[in-house]
C-alpha cells in the first residue's frame, strides 16, 4: 500500500497520463474525505437541509491541499475526479436516509449555492435517486454522454473543461449533453408517471 501523500500525487500524475485505474484509486482516497464533509454538514444541519456540491468539492480540495500538501495543478482535473465521488457520497447518503425514514420516498436534498447578489432559494427538490438510476442506465448505453452529465452536474465543470478532461471537443460535448439531458428527463418523467 502506498503512503497517502506520495500516493495521491503519483496517482494524479498517472491519471493525467490516461490511467483509468489511477482515477479509481484517487476516487477511493476522496470518498472518505467527502463523506466526512457531508457528515460535518449534516451534524450542523440535522435536517439535511443544505448541501452544495460546489461547496463540498471546494472544501475537499482545500482539505486535501492542506492536509496532504498535494498541489493540484489543474483544478479541473480535481473536480472531474471529485464528480464521481460526489455522486456516490450523495446517493449513498440519500439511500441511508430513505432507509431510515421508511416510506418517505424522495427525500429533499437541497442543492443550493448562492450566486453572489442573490438570496439563497431553499425549496424545490430534484429526485436525485431517480436521476442516479437513469444515469446508471445511460452509462450502460452511452458511457461518454453519461460521463458528461456527471461532470456537469456533480463536478460543476463547463463544457470547455469537460472537453479538455475527456480529450474531446466542445461541439461533441455540447451534443452529448443536449441529448443526455433530454433523454434523462424523459426517463425520469416516465418513471414518475408510471408510479
Amino acid at each position, binding site marked *: 500500500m502506498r503512503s497517502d501523500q506520495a500516493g495521491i500525487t503519483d496517482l494524479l500524475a498517472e491519471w493525467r497520463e490516461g490511467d483509468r485505474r489511477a482515477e479509481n484509486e484517487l476516487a477511493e482516497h476522496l470518498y472518505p474525505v467527502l463523506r466526512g464533509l457531508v457528515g460535518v*454538514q449534516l451534524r*450542523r*444541519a*440535522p*435536517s439535511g*437541509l*443544505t*448541501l*452544495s*456540491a*460546489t*461547496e463540498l468539492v*471546494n472544501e475537499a480540495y*482545500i482539505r486535501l491541499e*492542506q492536509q496532504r500538501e498535494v498541489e493540484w495543478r489543474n483544478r479541473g482535473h480535481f473536480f472531474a475526479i471529485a464528480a464521481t465521488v460526489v455522486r456516490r457520497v450523495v446517493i449513498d447518503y440519500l439511500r441511508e436516509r430513505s432507509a431510515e*425514514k421508511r416510506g*418517505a420516498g424522495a427525500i*429533499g436534498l*437541497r*442543492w*443550493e*449555492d*448562492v*450566486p*453572489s*447578489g*442573490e*438570496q*439563497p*432559494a*431553499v*425549496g*424545490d*427538490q*430534484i429526485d436525485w435517486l431517480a*436521476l442516479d438510476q437513469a444515469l446508471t*442506465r445511460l452509462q*450502460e*448505453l*452511452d458511457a461518454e*454522454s453519461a460521463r458528461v*452529465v456527471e461532470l*456537469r*452536474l*456533480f463536478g*460543476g465543470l463547463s463544457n470547455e473543461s469537460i472537453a479538455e478532461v475527456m480529450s474531446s471537443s466542445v461541439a461533441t460535448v455540447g*451534443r452529448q449533453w*443536449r*441529448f*443526455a*439531458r*433530454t*433523454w*434523462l*428527463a*424523459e426517463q425520469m*418523467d416516465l418513471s*414518475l408517471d408510471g408510479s
Partner: protein
Amino acid sequence: MDPEAFRTLRALFDEAMQEPPEARMQWISSRADLDAATVAELRRLLLREAGNDALPEGLPVSLLAAALKVEASPDAPIPACVGRFVLAEEIGRGGMGCVYRGVREDGGVRQEAAVKILRTDLRQRRALERFLVERELLARLDHPGIARLLDSGETGDGTPFVAMELVRGLGLIEYCASRHLGVVERVILFRQVVAAVSHAHKALVVHRDIKPSNVMVDGEGRVRLLDFGIAKPLANDVAATATADRFFTPAYAPPEQLIGAPITVACDVYSLGALLYELLCGRPPFELKDKRAAEIERLILVTPPRPMAQAFSSLDESRRLELAGRDVRPWRRQLSGELESIVQRALRKEPDSRYASADAMDEDLVNWLEHRPVRAAGAGRLYRLRKFLRRNAIATAAVVIVAASIGVAFALVLRETIAANRERDRAREALSVLGEAFVSADPTGLSGGDISARNILDAASRRISEHVDGKPDVYAELAEKVADVQLALGVVDVDDTGVMRALEWAGREAGQENLAWRLSLLQARRLVARHAFPDAEAALLRLERQKPGDPLVLLARGKFWVARGEPAEAIPFLTRAVAALPRETDDIERIDAHWQLAEAQRQKPDPAAAMSTLQSLLGGLEPVVGANHATVLLTRLRSVNVLLDLKRVDEAISEAQTVSPRIESLYGRTSSVSAQAWSTLALALVRAQRYGESLEPYRKAAQSFAESLGENHVATARSYFNLALMQNYVDPSDPSSAEGFRKAIAGASIARNPADPLVTFFRIEYAKSLIARGEKGVAREVLLPEGVMPDLAGAGPDIARVFRGQIEAVFGSLDCPKSGREPDLGTFEGRARELYCNRPTVDDAPT
C-alpha cells in the same frame, strides 16, 4: 432499452438537431424507413427538447435555480385565453409558474386579473397538488386585505390556472419609502397586513411565506396579501405537515420551518415580526446574502436578531436618510423602545413564546400606538429584575439583603396602581433605593445602561405613564426620578416623551416651578450626555436665560464643552461651578464638578492643574467621609491617570496598587468599577515596562468586566485583548494568549459586528501571534472567517495595509486577476483574493 435501438435513437436525435427547429417534426415524418416505436420515441424527445423540458443546464445548483425561476422560453406557447380571461403580457414568474395579466369584458364591465398558470413541466403530482391546494385555500378566504380569487379552472391543454384580483401598486417597503412614512404610519399600515393574516388564520389557513414581495399596497393605501402558493390548511393531524415539502424564503422563515417541525400560526407570527423589523429598520432580521448554508442555519436557529436600533444605525448614511429623512435620531429612539419588545417577541425562536396569534400581536401594536403599556415588554419583567439583581447585587451580604427588599418593593410598585399618596411615597422611595442600587452597581455609567437595568426602568416609566391623566403630580415627580436614575446610569438614548410630558404639566401648574426647573435641567443634561449638541445648546441657552449663575447650569455647560472636546471653553464654567456649589464636601454634584474640571484640565493638556484640582477635592473629602469611601477611592483612581500624564509612573503604580484592591473590596469583583481600577493599574505597569506584572491586573480586569458587563461588551473584549496582547508579548511561544484573543474577537463581533474595524484589528494581532508560532492554517481561519468580510475601508489605510501584509504572510503573494471575475467568497482563497486585491489605491500595496 435495447442498445441497438438506443444507438439508432441517439443518431437520429443528433441528425434532427441539424434541422431548423420548426422543420424537425416534418423531418421525422419524411423518414419512411423508421418503425413506429422509434418515431414515437424520437417525437417525445424532440418535443421535450423544444419545450425546454429537459434536465436543466448547469450545476445542481443552477438546476435548483432553474426549477424555481422558469427559464425564459419565448417559444413556449401561451394560451390566448383561459376561462373568461383574455391573456395579455406576462407580469411575473414564480416557482410554480408564470403570471399573466388577464382581461375580461363582461357586458361593458372590464375586469383585470392576475392569471397564474402552472408550469407545464411541473404537471407532476406534487406540484400539481400544491397548486390545487392554493386554489382551494384561496376560495376559503374573503378579506379586503387578501387578493381575491376570481376564477379557476384548466386551460385548453388541461393545465390548471387561477385568476386573482390584480393589485396595482407598490410593494409594502417601496410604498412606505415613496410616501416617506414615519414609524407610526408604518405601524398603522402594517396592522392591515396583520389583519389579513389573522383572517386567514381564522379560516384555518397558514400563509407560510409572508415577506415584503408578497405584500402590495394599492394607490389608496390598501394592503393586499398575495401568493398563497405554499399556504397550508391547518390540519388537525399536525404530524402530517411536519415533513411536508419546504419551499420558502429563509430570510423571513422561522426556525421550525427550516428544520421541518410542525407549522402553526406561530410561523406566520414570526414572519410578520420579520416583516415589521425590516419595515422599521431597513434590514431583514438576518442578512443572508453571501452567507454559507451552515451560517444561515445558525443565524435562524440560534442567533437572536440584533436590536432594531442597532440594525438601523448600521445602515449606510444614505439608506438611513432615505428611511428616516432628517429625523434619524427620533427614528432610532422609537425603535429602541417598546416596539423592539413587540418585534422581538414575534421573532422568538420557540414558537410557544411568540404571540399566540396575529390578533395578540395586533393588540400590542395598538397598545403601542395609544401609548399604553405593551404586553411583550411586561412578560419578562420580573424575570429580568431578578436576573439583574442576581448579577449585580452579590457584592456583599449586606447588599444582598437590601436588594431582596428592593425586589419586593419594586415588584409591588409595578404590580399595583399608585393611587394613594401613601403608595406614591412608597413608589418614590422604592425608585430612589432602586436607583441607588443601580448606580452603586455601576457608578461609572460605563455599561451605557445595562440591558436589564434599562428594561426595568422602561417598565417603570411605562407604569408611571398610566397616571399621566389621573395623577399628573405623581406622574411628573416619578418621571423625574426615573430620568434621574437613567442619567446616572448613562442611559441617555431613551424616549424623551415621559420627561417632556411631565415638564409640560409642571410648566403650567402653579407651585410646580421647582419641579419644572429640575425637569428642564435634567433634559438639558440628558441632551449633553447624548451628544445631541444643537438641541443641548438650545436647552442650555434657555436655562442660562432663566438663572444665569446657577451652579448646576454652569456644571451642565461645562460638561457640554468637555463633551465637545473644547477644554478651554469648559474650564471657566467648571471653575465657577466648583466655587458656586454648596460647601457640603460630599455633595455629589460638587464632586462631579471637580472631576469634570480635572478632566478638562487633562484634555487641555494641563495635568499639573488637574492634579491640584483632584488633590484639593481629596483634602476636603477624606477627613469627612473617610479614606475608604467610594468618592475618595474614585478620585484617587482618577489621579492615577493624571500621574501617568505627568510621567510620574512609579507614583502612579504605587497609588493604583493601593487603590485597586480597596475598590474591589468595596464594589466586589463583579463590578465594572473594579474592572476599571485593575485596568488602570495594568496600564501603569505597562507604562513602566513591567509587562510581566501587568498580566495579573489585566486578568482581573477582564474577569470583572466579563462578570459585570457580560462577555459581549466592548470594554470586556478590549480587556481580553489587552491581556492576550501582553501575554503574547511576554512569551510569544506560549499559546495561552489564544484564549484571550478568541474571546476578544467573539465578544466584539457581537457588541459591534464581525466586520468592524476593532474586530479586524483584534484579528490581525491574533494572526500575527499565530504566524509567529508557525500556525498558518489557524491564522488563515482567524483572518478570513466564514461569512465575514472585514470592513477594510472603514478600518483606515494603516489597518488595511497590515491586514493585507498578514494575508501575504499566510498565502504567499496572491495574483490578482485583471478581469472582473467574481471571486468565490465561500473559500479562503476567494476571500483572501477579494480583500487582498480589492484595494482603493496602488499606494496601499504591501511592498
